[in-house]
């Protein structure tokens, strides 16, 4: 319930901000009065029409995804890209609806709208992101997460999830080899995998992160499928420890790709 409410609030505030930023651009450009040369009503109508489409475009960049960090450059780029699409859509909507363009009158308005909706929305996302994460982590956590494998990699992951207050809240660790440690980065170690079903049930696990025990991947996946739990696998479990790894598609087959290091930066576009 909590995650859905927060997501609803986030989408609604984004829509309101999009409309608000365009209105701000309008008044900054035209002046804080209702002009008869450049009437507010058709402008506002066009913004209202375009706003849901812009939100849809923004949604396709997966900026609202549970595991997306708003702090990254990539996320900022996606928001800027959506803002650009928003401006283009607004211009087209205004032109087709009212047979009038902004040429010579309001090019600056479009520029302002772009700047406000890209930077403003990003800043809002940063703020909301932090607010949302703290609410999702409140006890009982919305996304209790089970860590499989008491490894150093697992300890580092738990540390990062807790440091960044990620919605995935590690609540239990199981280790196939039976570590003697009682806890891992502050998270209790409950024992070996024979306690999997018990822990999934008792802790209401929503996410399982496999950090070790490659030989048990199929069985962990099977348990997750049966209980509609999201399964995540660290590439290091398969021995992929390089930083530059990506999951891509090779003729429709998902593949994990690790490319040779030291390639020129422009290769990024074509590799």
């Amino acid at each position, binding site marked *: 319930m909590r995650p859905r409410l927060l997501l609803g609030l986030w989408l609604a505030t984004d829509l309101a901000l999009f409309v608000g930023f365009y209105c701000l651009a309008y008044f900054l450009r035209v002046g804080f009065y209702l002009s008869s040369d450049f009437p507010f009503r058709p402008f506002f109508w066009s913004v209202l029409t375009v706003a849901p489409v812009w939100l849809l475009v923004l949604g396709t960049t997966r900026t609202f995804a549970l595991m997306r960090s708003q702090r990254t450059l990539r996320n900022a780029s996606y928001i800027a890209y959506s803002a650009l699409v928003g401006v283009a859509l607004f211009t087209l909507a205004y032109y087709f609806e009212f047979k009038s363009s902004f040429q010579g009158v309001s090019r600056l308005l479009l520029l302002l709208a772009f700047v406000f909706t890209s930077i403003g929305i990003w800043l809002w996302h940063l703020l909301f992101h932090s607010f949302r994460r703290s609410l999702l982590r409140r006890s009982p956590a919305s996304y209790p997460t089970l860590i499989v494998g008491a490894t150093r990699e697992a300890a580092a992951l738990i540390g990062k999830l807790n440091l960044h207050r990620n919605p995935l809240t590690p609540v239990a660790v199981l280790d196939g080899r039976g570590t003697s440690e009682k806890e891992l980065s502050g998270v209790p170690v409950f024992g070996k995998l024979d306690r999997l079903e018990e822990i999934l049930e008792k802790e209401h696990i929503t996410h399982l992160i496999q950090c070790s025990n490659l030989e048990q991947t199929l*069985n962990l996946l*099977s348990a997750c499928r049966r209980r509609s739990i999201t399964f995540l696998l660290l590439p290091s479990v398969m021995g992929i420890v390089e930083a530059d790894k990506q999951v891509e598609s090779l003729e429709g087959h998902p593949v994990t790709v690790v490319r040779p290091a030291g390639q020129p930066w422009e290769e990024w576009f074509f590799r």
Partner: protein
Amino acid sequence: MRAFILAGGFATRLWPLTEKRAKPLLPLAGKPLVDHLIDQLPKEIPVTVSINAAFAESFERWKTTNSHSRVEIVVEEARKDTEKLGALGAVAQWVTERKIDDDILLLTGDNYCGFPINDVLAAYQPGTPIIAAHALSDIAMASAFGTIIPATDGKTVQAFEEKPALPKSALVSTGISIIPSRHLAVLVDYAKTKPDNIGGIFEEFLRRSIAVEYRAFTEPWFDIGSFEAYLEATRAIVGEHVHLGQEAICVTTKTEGSVVLGNRSSVRNSTLENVILFEDCTVEDCVLSDCIIDDHCNLKGIDLSKQMLREGTVLRKA
């Protein structure tokens, strides 16, 4: 004499096959591992199986399908590995609570013995503890077992070492032994301090100058404690054949090594090499090698190697 089968372990190394059943209930060539032991015991010997609370249900179910009406189940109140009483502790508790004053034939329920248990009974000299032993081909492997250092007479144990780092002998305990009634007090006493050290009781006997004998066997013997050992035991029993359970079907399928299909399992258009399918599994258009597949699994169009699959796994290539 009474038989006491130790079946109270949690067998975490064989997870997920032991998720809902104890190791002694794992099927081996068509019947539970523990049945391979019980079927060898003389009918007049009452049998007690010591289990833990986590697997009580599966053992009760097993008992209803088992023909041994003389089998009694005692449940140790342990639901987790950490709550275990210990193997020797379980024996001691049973001896004390039931006031047992018979000789005890101790058997570990997760061992497969190819040798006749009757021969151990025949070799038993009343009043002298005896261990059924097996000579391993590689002495280094003995470090995982209780090792017997034989005396020169060929029947007395000179020393017993539980899981030594550097084994002095390739002769190991098979988990089958007889403890005479007159030495049960020593067992109960020793279990107070070492409840988990089942092999340690023989060290204790020797320490107290109680003679211990052994009888060595050459027939196959397996301690089914791992995926590899389970497959190896199956290979030894089934050989290069396909073992079909009731209503099991294997059509247009290439098989190699030992293949066991549990009751109502079906395999079509596949290639199987050293594969154990439990009950009610369906395999179609798959290539499986060295795999153990639990009940109710459904596989289609996939290749798997060296895998144990948990009950109810569905893998169908999209």
